């Protein structure tokens, strides 16, 4: 695991694509994130940041980049995008740790946009309260109002990433994202039959839960 991890970090450092927001024909047509400034972090510093963040996730300690307040608000947003229902959601997946890791490394140039978005979101909330403090219904209402903003799209996409990317990135804790949708991609190879319909041809159990 350690060597895989180092390999990932090595690539992360060499990955000069910081335009991480956009994907081909992204459904919500996320607007291109400006800037081509490269993330300039040495491998040891990145290793330290990511390891610290992963350790933090495990012991519930402080965040590497985000303040506790920012983390609480982002975690609250993620929890409305993929809510906890009778199954685990973004909260149980530890998606916030993906945000914290990504803002320290591959998506560092999106941090400012996230902070500005949070500021605007909280500016509209009265008193000392922030987004994390208001009711779920009010949270939904406020998110619906900014659904088409670049900030919401950033939060949305990072929540998806954090919920489904490999756990090494900080989220998808105990593979809860994969478990939710029935994806067992971490298990390696497979034997036929794979599903219900080919089981009718090949016979045997279709491995369907």
């Amino acid at each position, binding site marked *: 695991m350690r060597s895989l991890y180092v390999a*990932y970090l090595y690539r992360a450092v060499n*990955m000069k694509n910081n335009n991480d927001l956009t994907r081909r024909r992204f459904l919500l047509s996320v607007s291109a994130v400006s800037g081509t400034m490269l993330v300039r972090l040495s491998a040891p510093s990145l290793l330290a940041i990511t390891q610290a963040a992963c350790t933090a996730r495990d012991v519930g300690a402080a965040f590497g980049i985000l303040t506790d307040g920012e983390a609480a608000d982002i975690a609250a947003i993620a929890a409305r*995008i993929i*809510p906890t229902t009778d199954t685990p959601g973004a909260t149980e997946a530890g998606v916030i740790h993906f945000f914290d890791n990504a803002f320290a490394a591959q998506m560092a140039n999106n941090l400012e946009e996230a902070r500005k978005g949070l500021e605007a979101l909280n500016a509209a909330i009265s008193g000392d309260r922030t987004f994390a403090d208001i009711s779920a219904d009010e949270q939904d209402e406020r*998110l619906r109002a900014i659904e088409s903003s670049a900030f919401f799209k950033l939060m949305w996409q990072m929540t998806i990433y954090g919920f489904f990317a490999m756990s090494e990135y900080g989220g998808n804790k105990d593979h809860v994202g994969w478990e939710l949708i029935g994806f067992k*991609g971490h298990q390696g190879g497979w034997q036929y039959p794979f*599903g219900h319909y080919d089981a009718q041809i090949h016979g045997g159990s279709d491995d*369907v839960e």
Partner: protein
Amino acid sequence: MSSSVTFDTRTPVDFAIIGSGSAGGILAKELSTAGFDVVVFEQGPYRKAADFRHDELAVMMREELMGGGNGRNRQTFRHFEHQTATTPGDIPAWYAQTVGGASVHFSANFWRFREVDFKERSLLGPISGTNFADWPIAYEELEPYYTRVDWEIGVSGAPGPFDSPRSKPFPMPPMPVKSSGVLMDRAAEKLGLHTQAEPLAILTKPFNGRAPCINCGYCMFFGCEVGAKSSTLAAMIPLAEASGHCEIRAESAVFRIETDAKGRASEVLYFDPAGNEQAQRAKAVIVCGNGAETPRLLLMSASEQHRDGLANSSGYVGRNLMFNAHAVVNSVFDEPLNDYKGVQVTRIIHDFYESDEKRGFYGGGGIDARPLWSATPIFHTLQGMPPDVPTWGAAFKDALAHNFTRQMSWVGSTTSLALDRNNITLDPATTDAWGRPALRVTYHDHDDDMAMANYLQDRCAELSDAAGAAKSWRRPVTPLSDSAHLLGTCRMGDDPASSVVDRDHRSHDVPNLFICDGSSFVTSGRGQPTMTIMALAFRAADRIKAAAAADDI
């Protein structure tokens, strides 16, 4: 990582091959095992099977194998010449920057062209406003080389009802049918259509010391960690290196081919891994960059003698870019398919392959059944959700949980017509990470290409209904702004006025400059070009060896 043999840059090697992908890897193996000294230039790193991981975020979202998208591999796009090209979020011309090129990360769908593909212009007549033409070679001339691809790189499959004749059976049986394929079989039977097993450049049995597929499901966009995908990385380059005559020079980005006073290619200029300029002397140069990088390099190699770019007296370098259009219908079924397991495609339909004047437009294509976006979770969530489902909240989560294992896609892929307006040029304002002028892609599908895509989408919708889908939806057919199929930009032909290379892949203008890759295509085929690129490469190698034996290079 370096090869076992290294060549001096100041002593001319027999061949400098630019690009290590589907064509370059085969030419490297063929020429080096014949005793020629070969240096292969690859701008990406030398990753091997053990380096490939199931990391969707890095591979699919951050385009790790494609040079990191618009960070390193910066490109620009516009639909029409009168527009200013801009840098989109996703690169328009997809290919892998890694030893083995796109053969490393493709889905390995592996159709031969059919006889009709090579002579359609003669059969159908001209199409006004296009550069629709016959190939200078026929299927019969390429058939022995398709068979060599089958048997040398390893192809699994079974003959289909519409296939052109083959001189030898497939070396191994097809992949067993997946649930998506079972549903296609059932639907086709109801509709009177004919399915066939998908030919794949993926091993179903041990072959030449390589292991068969383990059905991990990470084919599309990913490198194969067991070497079962028949990339040139897995199948050809090890043989080339074992010859002792081939050096793979990775992380070496070529920016110019130099010519001497006699007008012959003499030197390949490139940036080494440290970014320093280097020059490799060579007796002959073979460009195998792909249909985007090959014309870019030739245009970058303009000189006093070759003002419009090397090998471009015809003006055809970069022209006639063909992408293959696509149409998709997504379906959700009542029971789980778990189609994320195994290869993408196990069944195809070729009933609509040939052009039919009754449709009212030129074109043909094939339809396949596959998970497509439902092979991995992030891509599924970003691309594969039904349009009527909320994009966040509990209902979104419920749809994700229900659909992922139950979803599949019907994918139609079509012909593209060769047009002057669709091309690769050098961007005047943007450079890539090495400082080279960025690839500028100008592309807008011909109306007939879009009509064919819509026609196939109607057929896909019928298949979905006949298969009993609980829910299905169409992805809107729109003009393409990106593609992994980069074809036609240095077309092959007998007439130097309307083609770049001759039927033996030698450039008309420069006698010791050869070009072989998707750029050699005259027509686009029906959407799976890699098998034909590899067959052309085996044939080109034979022609080049014959020319060398006759002292004619």
